[in-house]
C-alpha cells in the first residue's frame, strides 16, 4: 500500500478530520450509554413485582402497569395476526406470481409510500377510518388495525428479500416433480424463507412496542385489567393504553416520573431483547445463504 507515502506528508487538515470522525463515532456510543444508564438509574427502583402485576389505583394505593403490559401484548398479537398473513401474502404474490409490469411497480410504490408516512398520520387516518367510519371507536382493535398498515411494508420487504435468496433450483425441482405452484410455496419456499420472515416479524413487533403517536387517538389510554375470560375478549373492543402511551401520560399530564422511568426500563429491556433476537436470526439467515 501507499502507506509510507501518506505517512510522510501528513496534512494538518487530515488530523483534524480524523479527530472529528472519531468524535462523532464516539458521540453515538456515548449517547446510547447515557440513555441506558440514566433510565436504569432513575427507573430501576420503581420496577418490582407489584409494579408489573398490579394496576395503579388510588383506592388500594397501588402503582402498577399490569394493564398496560396486557394491552401492549394484545396489540402486538392482534396486529401481527392481521399484518403477518397479508404482508407475507403480498410478498409471495410479488415474488412468485406477478410478472414485472405496471401492477407490480404500483404495489411497490404504494409499499414505499406507506413506509414513509409518519405514525401520527396513521393515527389520524385510523381514528377516522377504523374508529369513526367502521364504528370501532377507541379500541385495541382500532389501534391494531392502524398499526397493521404501518408495519405491513416492513414485513413485505423482509419476506421479499428472503424469498429472493431461495435458489431457483428449488422451484424447478418442485415443478419437475409435478408439484403445483401453491403446493411448492407452502412446502418449500415459505419454510426456506422462514428466518427472513421471522426477522421481519420481530422488527415489526419492535416497532409496535415502541409506537405511541399512532395509538393515542386509536387505542386510547385505559389501563384496567380484565377479571374474567369474557371480559378479556371484550377488551379487544375497548380502549386500552400501551406502555408507551402510559409513559407519555405519566411524564406529562400525570407528572408521575417514577412510573414513567419504570416503564422506560421495561421498554428498554423489551427493545434490547427484540434487537438481539432479530440479530441472531439475521445471522442464521446469513449462514444459510452462504452454504
Amino acid at each position: 500500500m501507499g502507506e509510507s507515502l501518506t505517512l510522510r506528508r501528513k496534512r494538518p487538515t487530515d488530523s483534524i478530520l480524523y479527530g472529528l470522525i472519531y468524535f462523532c463515532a464516539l458521540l453515538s456510543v456515548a449517547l446510547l450509554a447515557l440513555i441506558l444508564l440514566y433510565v436504569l438509574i432513575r427507573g430501576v427502583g420503581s420496577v418490582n413485582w407489584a409494579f408489573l402485576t398490579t394496576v395503579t389505583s388510588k383506592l388500594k394505593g397501588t402503582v402498577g402497569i399490569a394493564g398496560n403490559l396486557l394491552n401492549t401484548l394484545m396489540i402486538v398479537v392482534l396486529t401481527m395476526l392481521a399484518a403477518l398473513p397479508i404482508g407475507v401474502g403480498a410478498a409471495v404474490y410479488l415474488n412468485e406470481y406477478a410478472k414485472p409490469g405496471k401492477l407490480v411497480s404500483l404495489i411497490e410504490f404504494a409499499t414505499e409510500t406507506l413506509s414513509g408516512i409518519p405514525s401520527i398520520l396513521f393515527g389520524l387516518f385510523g381514528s377516522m377510518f377504523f374508529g369513526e367510519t367502521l364504528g370501532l371507536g377507541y379500541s385495541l382493535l382500532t389501534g391494531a388495525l392502524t398499526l397493521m398498515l404501518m408495519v405491513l411494508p416492513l414485513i413485505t420487504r423482509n419476506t421479499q428479500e428472503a424469498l429472493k435468496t431461495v435458489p431457483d433450483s428449488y422451484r424447478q425441482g418442485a415443478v419437475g416433480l409435478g408439484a403445483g405452484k401453491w403446493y411448492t410455496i407452502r412446502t418449500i419456499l415459505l419454510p426456506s424463507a422462514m428466518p427472513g420472515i421471522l426477522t421481519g416479524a420481530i422488527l415489526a413487533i419492535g416497532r409496535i412496542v415502541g409506537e405511541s403517536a399512532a395509538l393515542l387517538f386509536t387505542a386510547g389510554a385505559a389501563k384496567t385489567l380484565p377479571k374474567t375470560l369474557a371480559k378479556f375478549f371484550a377488551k379487544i373492543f375497548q380502549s386500552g393504553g400501551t406502555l408507551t402511551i402510559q409513559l407519555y401520560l405519566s411524564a406529562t399530564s400525570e407528572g408521575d416520573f417514577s412510573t414513567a422511568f419504570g416503564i422506560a426500563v421495561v421498554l428498554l429491556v423489551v427493545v434490547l431483547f427484540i434487537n438481539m433476537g432479530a440479530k441472531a436470526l439475521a445471522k442464521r439467515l446469513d449462514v444459510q445463504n452462504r452454504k
Partner: protein
Amino acid sequence: MKKIKGIPGHDAFTAERLARALLLICAVVAIFAVCAITFYLFAKGLPALHRVGVGELLFGTIWKPTAAEPSFGIAYIILSSIVGTALSVLVGVPVGLLTAVFLTEVSGKRLSAIVQPAVELLAAIPSVIYGLLGMMLLNPVLYKLEKIIFAGSTTHQYTGGADLLAAVIVLAIMILPTVISVSASAIRAVPGQLRAASLALGASKMQTIWGVTVPAAKSGILTGVVLGIGRALGEAMAINMVAGGSVNLPLPFNSVRFLTTQLVSEMGYAEGIHRQVLFTVGLVLYLFIMLVNLVLLRLRREGGNDHG
C-alpha cells in the same frame, strides 16, 4: 384414480386459483391503504380551507381555536416544522456522515463492533423515551442558558427550557441512525478500485475519502438525508414532550408547536371547525411527506442509473 398429495388434480387447480386470488388481494392492500389515507386526508382536510379561507388559515399567524372569536392561522406551525426539521438535519447530517465514514473507512473491526450495534439500538429506542430524557436532561440545561441569555430582557417569555432548541437537539439525535445506516451502505457500495486509484495517485486517505469515495456515494448519502428529513418532519411524541407547545415564531428559545405536535395536543378534545382545521394540519403534513417521498423516488432512480 387415487389422489397423490401435491400433484395438481381437479381440486388442486381450484386451490391454485384460490391461492392466487387471495395473494393478489394481500398485495393490493398496500395500494388500497395509500389511496384510502390520501382520500380521507383530503376529504376531511379540505372543508376547513374553504370555511376559514385559504389565506387566513395557511398564512394567518394567530392560533386561538377556542376563543369567542376564534382564529385559525397555522403559518407559525408550518414554519416551525420547516425550521425545526432544517436545523435538526443541519446538525444531524454532518455527525451522521462522519460516523458513517468512521464505520466504513476508518475504524477497524473491533471498534465497528461497538459503534454499529450502538447505532442500531439508538434506532430502536421508542420516541417517548427520547422525549422523557429530553424533559429531564435537556430542558433544565436550556433553561439555565435561557436565564443567562435573557437576563435583562423584559419582553422574553420564559419557557423553562422547553423550546425549539430542545426539539432540534432531540430530532437531530433521532435522525442519526437513519442517516448513518443509509450513508454507510452507500459508501460501502463504492467500488474498491476507485479508492485504490486515488491512493495510487498519492492522495492521502482523507483526501481519498472526501474527494473520491463520498462524492461517488453522493446519491445514496442524499437518500439518507432525505429519509432523515422525512423522519424529522413526522416525529410527534418526543418533540411534543420537549418543545413547550405554544404557537410561536420558531426562534431558538421560543416555545413552539409543530404540525405533528399540533395534532397530538389538540386532537383529543377538538370539536367542530377546530377539529376540521386539525385535519387540514394533517393534510399539510401529508403533502410535505409526499414531497419528500417524490424526491426519494427520484433519487433512487438516479442512484439506479449510476451503478448500472
